[in-house]
């Protein structure tokens, strides 16, 4: 096992060099330890999520079985459903069997529709993934240019305008933003469909058309938040020693920016993207309701209202798992964008 290549952040590596660096990094014991730690950490947190979700369900008022049955039911029907849903078992037994089943991908059966929860969740995943990904792309398309521009013009009028705009973007509630966009682009101009979703596999063009408005709604909010982070990361990089050194060596400005400033700004930005995903997943609930988007967010919202316990638990668990997975990926990305990681 060789030591990782001593890469200065400003070194330009070819694609092949990058690949070999990755391979060597992955073989490095420290990197392995970091990855293992990340995976273990994820598993422990996920277990915590299961227990907390399960506990919350016990704490909310009302008997889920009675709620599921409505007002007219026989005592036999009540007992039968309690037994079928395992609610007649001691709490610890319920929890353990839930964890056991969850590990095998069995998240129980929805109270409301009688369908397996896992299937219901997987059905909704593509719509949510489309929206989250497109929203993030829109957010980055806003944040990266705006953040860099703002940082380079620090203290000038353009900087002020961008800062005020991003503050406004953060402040506008996303459902309101969504309604404004629908009113303008669908009912007034008639350019885009107001709502609904078409799977990518069915009609890619229609998928993209319907994705625009909700993705812009999601992206504007997260883009506004990320703009500030990009801006401060670039300002920090501009103030660093090696930028001063490079500039004094007479390196042309574009090269200084490309090699030294932006590359160093990538690390904090990657972190922010990870954190943003959480905000994004939360915001999707509202945006999905406004756009009648058949995703996980709306499913969760409906499940909560219907007191569909197994479905709520499953949805929260899946959201939690997605979030943890994203964070794990961010940790790994970190190792890629910041090669010093293997030397710590």
């Amino acid at each position, binding site marked *: 096992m060789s030591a990782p290549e001593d890469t200065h952040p400003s070194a330009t590596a070819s694609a092949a060099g990058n690949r070999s660096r990755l391979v060597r990094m992955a073989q490095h014991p420290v990197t392995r330890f970091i990855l293992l730690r990340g995976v273990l950490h994820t598993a422990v947190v996920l277990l915590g999520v299961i227990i907390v979700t399960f506990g919350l369900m016990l704490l909310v008022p009302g008997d889920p079985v009675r709620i599921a049955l409505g007002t007219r039911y026989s005592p036999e029907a009540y007992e039968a459903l309690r037994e079928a849903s395992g609610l007649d078992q001691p709490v610890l037994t319920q929890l353990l069997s839930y964890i056991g089943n969850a590990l095998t991908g069995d998240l129980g059966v929805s109270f409301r*529709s009688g369908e397996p929860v896992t299937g219901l969740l997987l059905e909704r995943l593509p719509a949510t993934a489309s929206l989250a990904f497109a929203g993030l792309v829109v957010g980055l398309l806003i944040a990266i240019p705006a953040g860099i521009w703002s940082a380079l013009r620090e203290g000038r009028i353009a900087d002020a305008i961008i800062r005020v705009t991003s503050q406004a973007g953060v402040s506008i509630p996303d459902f309101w933003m969504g309604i404004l966009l629908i009113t303008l682009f669908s009912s007034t101009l008639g350019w885009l469909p*107001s709502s609904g979703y078409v799977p990518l596999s069915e009609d890619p063009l229609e998928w993209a058309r319907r994705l625009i408005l909700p993705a812009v709604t999601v992206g504007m909010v997260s883009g506004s938040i990320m703009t500030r982070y990009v801006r401060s990361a670039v300002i920090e990089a501009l103030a660093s020693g090696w930028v001063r050194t490079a500039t004094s060596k007479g390196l042309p400005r574009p090269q200084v920016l490309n090699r030294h400033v932006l590359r160093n700004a990538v690390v904090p930005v990657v972190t922010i993207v990870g954190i943003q995903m959480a905000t994004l997943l939360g915001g999707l609930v509202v945006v999905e309701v406004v756009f009648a988007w058949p995703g996980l967010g709306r499913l969760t919202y409906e499940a909560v209202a219907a007191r569909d316990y197994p479905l709520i638990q499953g949805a929260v668990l899946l959201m939690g798992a997605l979030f943890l997975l994203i964070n794990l990926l961010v940790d790994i990305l970190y190792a890629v964008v910041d090669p010093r990681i293997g030397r710590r």
Partner: protein
Amino acid sequence: MSTTHRRSRLRPTLGAIAASALVCGVLASCSGGDGVDIDESDGGSSDGIAVAIGGEPDQLDPHKTSSYFSFQVLENVYDTLVEPDENLEMQPALAKSWTQSKDQLTWTFTLRDGVTFHDGSDFTAEDVVYSFNRITRNDLPNAYRFAAVKEVTAVDPHTVRIDVKAPTPNLLSSIGGFKGVAIVDKANVESGDITTKPVGTGPYALTDFTSGDHIDLEANEDYWGGAPKIPSIRYRFIAEGATAIAALKAGEIAWTDSIPPQQVESLSEGDDVNVGVVPSNDYWYLALNEKRKPFDDVRVRQAIAYAIDRDDIAQVTSYGNAEVNQLAIPKDSAWYTEYDTYSLDQEKARDLLDEAGVEDLEMELMVSSDYPETVDAAQVIADSLSEVGIDLKIRSLDFGTWLDEQSKGNFDMLYMGWLGNIDPDDFYYSQHHTDGADNAQGYSNPKVDRLLDSARTETDEDKRQQLYDEAATTIADEASYIYLYNPSVIQAYSPDLSGYTVRSDRAIRWRDASMD
């Protein structure tokens, strides 16, 4: 049972989900829209329509679901033996005629010939027996409608006999009032497909149910009432009223009832959308827990009935789209009775409280956050009651918990609505008879019990009307319920949609509609 009545708001409210709510009475399906966005490949066709309802059906088994969203679809998929027309009079449907025996204990129904289910199987008397027995033997939500029924028998493939325990003048509305008593297909039930792929005999057959997104119906060319003109209907689930209205204006949908009441006025002004506002047979009411002091004292209940301002309450909840009413039944109904004892009179309210010896009363009003308008109205009620020295605390619960608390009797006063009422027996008996299944307030008056018992079996229509007049008046006089208002049915649709009627029972029927 309570309503699944809902309105979407500019903030996403949980009212959108009526899945937990219970529907009584007649409900129906819905919808229309330009089929421009419907993809040929998934069951739509370019001349079908799309329509938007406020939420997704929990399931599509008509005997088991209690969600209005389900019935908005099922109204067009299923038939009943008889069905209500626009004036809520019962007309032939799967049964073309019926007779009663002299002693009125036997009804004989002659069924239509040549009717088939959407899967091609024949509809016969056996299907009627199977459907009704399924409801009663499994104690499904509508079993109470068959309380008077002793036995259902298939005399021959086209004749059904129903034996009743006593003369039952409202039998027709019990077995045909709404699609919760529809005739289902045994094979469809036994395969378990009925929850997602129901098979009926109705004007439209269900071709696709994509959870979270849409339900597609296709015209049944062999429908006994003639093939529908609109070839296909796609139901979309749009909870947000602003989105639904934008979709309607953009021509993506042809019909929606997902309309915030505060937008009715501005919508009506334009000519790009037709708005239908019809008084419904739903009513909203307050009820006091008579098992708790001092609400067992009729004077305290009357004081509250005098102290509240119904006009304000109706304004807050419905923005003018409601009729204030001190009894359950709206003006347009054949069962309407004039009654206006409780005009706003806070002086009188204070006197009644003094007489009852009640001072500094503190009480709680239980409302449901799933019906946000009730939370708003609760504040108006609290304000009125403070004028007569009553300190009202508002307790807002999700609807499931609300129902739970109601059935346990954990409340001082509650605020709720009932939906789609046709025959007075459907609701007066269960809510105000001592043995009524929904008498959560614990009202008990032997005189009212007698009136309701005899009205149940009185076959002379005028006499029956008199009995209900007297019962309803007594119920209101003694404030078993404090009735508030009848909300309007609000629907908006494309000017190109014709032959469609906004009905007071909220049944949404597409079979006679067409798109120009």
